């Protein structure tokens, strides 16, 4: 190894040994230089896009548009969260979009046509997703058909299934107030602040307790300054978001007041926390990464690779069902196009833009949220610029390609730096 890499190795190692803000920052820049960019492209992209749209269309930075971003991006983000699990294994689920359509249609049929209560509909939709995932995963893991082909077939078949469920093309409206609240209602401002305080406090507590526990056993632990910086960053960013969302955004407040954090936001935060916990703190999550990194090593370590694969597809399709419910809630209806057109590509794009690798083994649930934000901003900004569908498709296709390109180049660079 050359002298320079040894020096940078020292930087990485020093950060692992006795981390401080400075050494952590140095280790991070070093990782980025070696090609492990993580969420950096998504964050930079978000900043650039927001600035550009804000300059071109002042209406982009209004409170109402900020709230719209969340409800517009929610369904894509949730589907992308599920896709992260499949992408972690180096597989793909092209049917996730129409899976969300099928599940939304199941929900609509149960609620509107059969008059079931909302919880039955939601449960049935999610179970439908889980069953779909287990079938897809079974075909991939047990029979060994490439996931690309299995899910491409499912992509076509589920379009048909949606049509069957909505009687060859009718539009089923959803009138259930609970379901409609998911993507259309807001939390009372006070509740928004309360949840915000609870989240920041819980985050700080978890970080502190972990550091204390590790320090008491003589293990390397994060210094208090680093924890404080992280907590402060979360507090500022989330606080700003809650403040903006709590602003009055109705055009005529006297007629109907409109303010508060959209209901989908706490739902997404809860899903983010849940799946991050599963991936990072449980044996199942560890095994997912292992199978994605080296399936043969995982198999020899006694991990049931097939079972991990099937579970990943089940999680993916179940999350697609949740995404479908959110989409149905936002549109107040389900039609043959629910989950169709660009939903899947947006969702895959969101995961990849966020930093999840298409080659497996690398990715976080947070990536889906960051990438989902990028997609939502593009979609929203382009609409404000009054571009037609043609330009929107072209730009989104280009962005997806760009993200995949960054991923592939980062991988190449990492290989050159001996990281892979």
């Amino acid at each position, binding site marked *: 190894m050359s002298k320079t890499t040894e020096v940078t190795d020292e930087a990485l190692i020093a950060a692992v040994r006795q981390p401080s803000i400075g050494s952590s920052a140095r280790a991070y820049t070093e990782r980025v230089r070696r090609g492990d960019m993580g969420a950096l492209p998504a964050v930079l992209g978000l900043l650039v896009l927001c600035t550009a749209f804000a300059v071109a269309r002042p209406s982009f930075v209004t409170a109402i548009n900020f709230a719209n971003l969340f409800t517009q991006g929610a369904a894509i983000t949730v589907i992308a969260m599920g896709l992260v699990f499949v992408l972690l294994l180096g597989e793909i689920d092209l049917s996730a979009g129409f899976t969300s359509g099928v599940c939304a249609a199941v929900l609509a049929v149960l609620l509107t046509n059969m008059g079931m209560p909302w919880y039955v509909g939601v449960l049935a939709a999610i179970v439908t997703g889980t069953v779909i995932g287990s079938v897809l995963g079974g075909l991939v893991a047990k029979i060994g058909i490439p996931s690309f082909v299995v899910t491409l077939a499912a992509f076509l078949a589920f379009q048909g299934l949606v049509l069957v469920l909505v009687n060859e093309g009718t539009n089923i409206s959803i009138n259930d107030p609970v379901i409609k609240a998911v993507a259309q209602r807001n939390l009372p401002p006070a509740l928004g602040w309360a949840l915000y305080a609870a989240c920041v406090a819980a985050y700080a507590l978890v970080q502190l307790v972990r550091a204390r526990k590790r320090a008491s056993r003589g*293990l390397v632990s994060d210094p208090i300054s680093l924890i404080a910086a992280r907590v402060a960053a979360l507090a500022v960013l989330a606080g700003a978001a809650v403040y903006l969302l709590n602003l009055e955004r109705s055009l005529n407040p006297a007629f109907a007041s409109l303010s508060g954090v959209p209901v989908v936001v706490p739902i997404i935060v809860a899903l983010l926390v849940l799946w991050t916990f599963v991936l990072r703190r449980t044996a199942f999550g560890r095994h997912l990464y292992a199978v994605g990194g080296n399936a043969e090593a995982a198999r020899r370590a006694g991990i049931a690779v097939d079972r991990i694969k099937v579970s990943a597809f089940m999680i993916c399709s179940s999350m697609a069902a949740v995404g479908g419910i959110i989409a149905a809630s936002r549109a107040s209806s389900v039609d043959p196009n629910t989950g169709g057109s660009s939903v899947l590509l947006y969702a895959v794009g969101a995961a990849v833009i966020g930093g999840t690798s298409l080659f497996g083994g690398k990715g976080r649930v947070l990536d889906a949220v960051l990438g989902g934000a990028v997609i939502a901003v593009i979609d929203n900004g382009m609409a404000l610029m009054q571009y037609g569908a043609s330009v929107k498709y072209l730009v989104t296709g280009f962005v997806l390609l760009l993200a995949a390109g960054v991923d592939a180049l980062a991988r190449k660079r990492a290989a050159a730096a001996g*990281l892979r």
Partner: protein
Amino acid sequence: MTPLLEVRGIDKSFGPVQVLHDVTLHAHAGEVTALVGDNGAGKSTLVKCIGGIHPIDAGEIVFDGKPVQVHGPRDAGELGIEIVYQDLALCDNLDIVQNMFLGRERRSGLVLDEATMEELAQQTLSGLSVRTVKSIRQQVSSLSGGQRQTVAIAKAVLWNSKVVILDEPTAALGVAQTAQVLELVRRLADTGLAVVLISHNMNDVFAVSDRIAALYLGRMAAQVRTADVTHAQVVELITAGRSGDLGLKNGVTP
């Protein structure tokens, strides 16, 4: 002294090709047994049979004086037989601790017990006097070949294993790293483990082994004490299956 691990009369065929003929091998605790043989002699197949990857057609495996059935890697692991394969089977995207505990993570309740795993990994590495690895939270992708080999070996001994089988651990390493790994192999045996070392390199074999077992075309040509044979004799055993009084008597035609 009875051997810790003994395989007797193992036959193994893949379809019409018989790869192992009546193979016998023993490994003693506290000793390094070198398993040598030319390409295709059946070394890897024999190891995979012991490790439960391949089912055996005939013969028996005796562990600690008792005949045992090994139907899969799990069975082998439970007996205390660990195999470090040539490709190491490490996950590049995980760190050293995560790799060492892969598939056997410590948990407290539902949550992974990272602190305990880190402590145990640290103890194992320092118990093997490994000082080349600077942080055990490094990703394996950032390690050198010798360090990876060290991690793979440490992973194998973490589980109170009694027999460690190493498949060509030095094949891809440079001179200094080879010396480090051989030193580690010797230390494993000195701590009381039975070590089986597959190697092509006569220097390595003579440097660390106590006994040499030579396979020739799927048959065990000879098992001898390293001190009793010369370099040339071992090469003859590998290439011709016999060397003077040693080796296969009836002569095997290739």
